[in-house]
């Protein structure tokens, strides 16, 4: 829902389809930002992610007025984005660092942090959290070892629901610590 229009993405699409140019501008402004958030987690290079977002937005712009959205606009737009990402990955498939499971890249790049202060605060907070919230620390540790949710649930003998609750709580504790220094 956009603050300008007070409506969902699908509502914006309806308005844009009926000829509301402002709604169309707002629709693609929102779509571009959300595509970017997804694309940069799927591909390593920022510039490549921006190119993919641009291509996906162009395709959506070309087709959204005539396309029938069986599972909703968002699902269709997501398919467009995934197709663009898939095309990029296919083109880079010979690269040794391109894929995770054959379709996507699923780890962020190993790079030196551009925010050493934040990194220091994060480390301080995580040191505290490891002591007071060891289950969250164990999930993080398993994620660093490359385990995904199903495997982590098996290892920790918890349900998916419990795992996601645990992670939500851990995120809240971490956020609070980063803000206040307290756990």
């Amino acid at each position: 829902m956009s603050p300008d229009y007070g409506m969902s993405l699908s509502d914006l699409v309806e308005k844009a389809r009926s000829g509301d140019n402002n709604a169309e501008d707002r629709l693609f402004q929102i779509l571009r930002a959300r595509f970017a958030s997804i694309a940069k987690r799927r591909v390593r290079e920022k510039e490549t992610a921006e190119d993919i977002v641009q291509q996906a937005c162009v395709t959506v712009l070309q087709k959204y007025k005539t396309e029938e959205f069986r599972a909703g606009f968002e699902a269709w737009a997501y398919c467009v984005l995934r197709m663009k990402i898939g095309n990029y990955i296919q083109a880079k498939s010979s690269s040794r660092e391109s894929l995770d499971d054959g379709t996507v890249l699923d780890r962020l790049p190993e790079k030196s942090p551009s925010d050493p202060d934040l990194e220091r605060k994060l480390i301080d907070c995580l040191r505290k959290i490891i002591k007071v919230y060891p289950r969250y620390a164990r999930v993080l540790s398993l994620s660093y070892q490359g385990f995904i949710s199903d495997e982590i649930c098996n290892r920790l003998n918890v349900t998916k629901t419990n795992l996601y609750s645990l992670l939500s709580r851990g995120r809240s504790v971490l956020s609070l610590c980063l803000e206040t220094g307290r756990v």
Partner: protein
Amino acid sequence: MSKCTNESTGRLLHAYEINILTEPEREQFEIHLLECEYSHDLLLVFERQAELLTSSSKVRSLFDDVKTSSTHREPLSDRVKQWLWPETPFVFKPAIAYLLVLLLIIPAYYGVSSHTTQTVSEFQQSIYLSPNRSGSTNLRISDGGNALLTFRYEGSIPEKRYRVKIDSENGRTMYLNDKFSGFDEREIGVLSLDLSGIKPGKYRLVIDDPNSENASSREYLFYIE
């Protein structure tokens, strides 16, 4: 937007941030991100932190010593804490339940305890007065409380009223009950005697039937020391 459009999918947020979702879950969450401003804003707010969390080698090194097996035994204090204060809503935490149970048990315990103590103290000394042993029956005031005197009156009838009197050595009546009806079928009567107002000395307990001229009286001697 102040609320997530689909909270069951929105709860995958942190799992998405640290890259542990399965591919179907990841697609589900990414479609959700397109439609939910709230979740997208949360993702952006924590973007730098999440990036450091997943990519910083210094951060990763913190977790080298973290045990990751479910069979790993955490320290006892952690296990106790987890047992009493697990990651559940406040009202479901066992510690709260135990506290409530304690709050209920403590007054109940003191209630029962004080009642029991009171009952015991009332009958600290229970003595059977026998004609053969009456001269050697002693009650000790130093023990405090009440004494339960048991005696027999031949020919007594249950529920019928008799006179029971306790006189001191110098003839002063310490206890008098004209309507004593505590005899049972075995002609045994039981009297609770408060020792607190009675001095040490020799006493005589007399039972008779004031309504019958022919009935004989029965006397028992006992000592209070």
